[in-house]
């Protein structure tokens, strides 16, 4: 050994030079890999997770009900979604902590309890919508939801608790790619592109219950509270730091724009087919029929596959993420590998959400599409609580240092927060006092 070491030491200098070459090679390889991974980063995944059962139902009914006239909302909502997602991703990178952690550490127990309650309700709503999505999808395929929903719930619960969920996740993700079919369908339906363009640039607003309902649902489904928690956690999970944050910023914005582009085509294709024919989206079959220009008589099956994939994906991830957030914020044991005795709150929350989601979805004669929309409205109504919290955190210099919001960013973010809050308040008022619209003439 001693001899060996002596020989090596003699060769040390020469080897160091060789070493540097090796370094150069490996570094080059790593950067290429990072470039590829950036394309499918947390921002991309999160923004597109928004296009789940609730999202598709909301935008299909927007297109059917209002044609192209609400397309203009997509422009401000792209900015809002991007700005909000970017703030959370940045907080994750700078602090290395999840949103729930930060809320607990900065605002203490009471505010944490309030935010977590809001999150629990909102996510319970979304979980219901995912199981409703499963019900709608399987019924299109000819399986009654009294069979499919309990089976799906047990399957999801079992896969997650056994820790094998990740393996099937990709299959669900692939299935949900069917929604890309709306892009093709939109073109094949030959919409009048001039009216599409007109709808995109002329804001219309009506102070009516139905209109506000749709409006809040759009906001709620695009900028859902869970997405902020989700994007921040995945940025932390991925180990992004303040130094290599710029790639994540790009990822967030690319993901946001990509998600909204899909939404745009859903609205255009439903507008060109259903709205023209005067069909309201009251069931999944009607939402599916907007895919006819592409798939003809297979439209329903295709739609069902996409909806099933997207819903199964979120039906597992969402209750799991909620259970993580709540356990994290309140400091309980967490992890799916724990037993019920070790982590009662974690597994309890997860099981509760899956059970409630499935139980509501099998209520006989439930108007599925309506339920999907209502859950998105609940999201929208609870969003201000999360947004205000995020705004206070992201501008906390002690937490974020130099990485607090810039002026322009703050302007956009505050506008989003105020408008979303205003809409929510307005919607609640209009629901409780229907006569209020007359005051505005």
């Amino acid at each position, binding site marked *: 050994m001693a001899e060996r070491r002596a020989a090596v030491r003699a060769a040390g200098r020469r*080897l160091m030079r060789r070493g*540097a070459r090796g*370094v150069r090679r490996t570094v080059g390889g790593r950067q290429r890999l990072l470039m590829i991974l950036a394309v499918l980063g947390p921002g991309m995944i999160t923004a597109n997770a928004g296009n789940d059962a609730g999202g598709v139902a909301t935008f299909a009914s927007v297109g059917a009900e209002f044609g192209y006239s609400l397309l203009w909302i997509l422009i401000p909502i792209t900015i809002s979604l991007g700005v909000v997602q970017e703030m959370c991703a940045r907080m994750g990178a700078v602090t290395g902590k999840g949103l729930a952690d930060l809320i607990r550490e900065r605002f203490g127990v009471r505010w944490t309890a309030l935010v977590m309650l809001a999150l629990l309700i909102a996510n319970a709503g979304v979980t219901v919508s995912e199981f409703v999505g499963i019900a709608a999808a399987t019924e299109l395929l000819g399986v009654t939801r009294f069979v499919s929903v309990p089976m799906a719930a047990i399957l999801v619960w079992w896969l997650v608790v056994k820790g094998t969920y990740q393996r099937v996740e990709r299959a669900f993700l692939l299935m949900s790619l069917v929604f890309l079919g709306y892009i093709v369908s939109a073109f094949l339906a030959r919409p009048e592109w001039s009216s599409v363009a007109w709808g995109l640039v002329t804001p219309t607003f009506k102070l009516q219950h139905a209109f506000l309902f749709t409006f809040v649902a759009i906001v709620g489904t695009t900028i859902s509270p869970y997405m902020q928690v*989700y994007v921040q956690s995945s940025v932390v999970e991925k180990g992004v730091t303040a130094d290599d944050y710029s790639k994540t910023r790009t990822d967030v914005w690319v993901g946001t724009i990509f998600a909204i582009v899909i939404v745009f085509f859903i609205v255009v294709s439903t507008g060109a087919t259903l709205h023209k024919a005067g069909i309201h989206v009251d069931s999944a079959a009607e939402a599916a029929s907007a895919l006819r220009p592409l798939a003809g008589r297979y439209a329903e099956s295709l739609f069902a596959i996409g909806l099933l994939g997207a819903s199964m994906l979120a039906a597992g991830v969402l209750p799991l*993420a909620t259970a993580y957030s709540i356990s994290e914020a309140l400091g309980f044991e967490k992890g799916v590998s724990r037993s019920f005795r070790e982590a009662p709150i974690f597994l309890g929350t997860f099981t509760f959400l899956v059970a409630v989601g499935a139980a509501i979805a099998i209520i006989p004669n439930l108007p599925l599409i309506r339920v999907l929309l209502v859950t998105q409205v609940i999201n929208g109504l609870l969003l201000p609580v999360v947004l205000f919290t995020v705004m206070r955190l992201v501008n906390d210099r*002690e937490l974020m240092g130099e990485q607090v919001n810039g002026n322009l960013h703050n302007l956009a973010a505050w506008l989003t927060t105020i408008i979303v809050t205003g809409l929510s308040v307005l919607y609640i008022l209009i629901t409780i006092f229907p006569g209020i619209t007359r005051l505005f003439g």
Partner: protein
Amino acid sequence: MLYLSQVLGRPIRDLEGERVATIKDVIVRLGADDHPPVTGLVARYRRRDFFLSRWRVSELNQQGVRLNSDILDLRPFVRREGEVLLARDVLDKQLIDVDGKRVVRVNDVQIIETSNDWRVTGADVSLQGLWRRLAPHGFVGTARAVEVLDWADVGYLATDAATVQLKSSSDKLSRLHPVEIARLAEALSYHHGSEVVESLDDETAAETLEEMPPEHQVRILGDMDEERAADILEWMSPDEAADVLGDLPEEKAEELLGLMEGEEQADVAELLPYEDDTAGGLMTTEFVTLPRALTVGEALARLRDMAETPNMIYYLYVVEAEESWRLRGVIALRSLILADPKMPLEDVMRTEFQRATVDEPANEVAQRIAEYNLLALPVVDDSEEILGIITVDDAMEILLPKDWRQRVPKLFG
């Protein structure tokens, strides 16, 4: 016994019982004590914070504070070295429980009055602690025993107050196995994870880093003071150190390599040129060679005399002669011990053995190790000279699927 939550916001009264301010925070000095003493309070009066030394306090309980004089010295509060504010730096923050080997969040802090002062005795991590703070004042929940973590078991406090990390707490952490330290550090945010590693001594830090994923090793060592990083790299096994250097930016890697001590530096430098996914990239240079002319007894004596034995001495590699690297045979330590001490190594060694070439794909080599149930496999160059060995633990890392190794499942995708 007192809880922090029962004290915060309570009034501070003078001798006459007149309310003069409210309690905003409790100051504690962390030091060698297992149960740190309270050194003072932060008093809030007319939206400004003042320091109140503990010597001015005669009573501290659920009713608040009673001062021992009427003269209130209003010095503005400034944090001193080693001091933590319980409400600001401890409450709601995470800490490492060395006894339970877990990361917990502080729901409340337990304070006990001793003969002449108040001391922090524990961190309440129970549901009751949470409820005590959530429920309105005076509303008492269940009388069930609360789960309080002894402050003496606090290994690390994940707070942003930079000055409070202590030598004593890193000693507590060092009692844990590096695998556990790594797991706990990973459960914290990356800032705090790095801080945990930095607080350890060089050897433990190196062992802990080896248990972390490569990206984290690179980040932690890359952000560290260069001298310290080089010291830690010296303690890491050469193959791990070479992997880290290979992943760091070129300039940084050369700087760190330059700061390392001669021997360790040469060991690492030798491994750097090989690609990650080849046998050369997988091997380590820590192994023992013995000339074939030695007898079994001489060989054993030489092993005993070695200043530092490598981790892997289950196989000894027999070479042509002193100063030669030409590999002739392999002897398992077991056969060496069992053999007649007078026999020459040549007669004991196995000449038919598995070997790998430097540019053989790492995957194939790892599979061979698993297939033949080997603990290590020598790597040779074209002229049959031994360059290094691949140990079974490194081979396993390649063979086992990634998500199997992470026992805690990832949250998202």
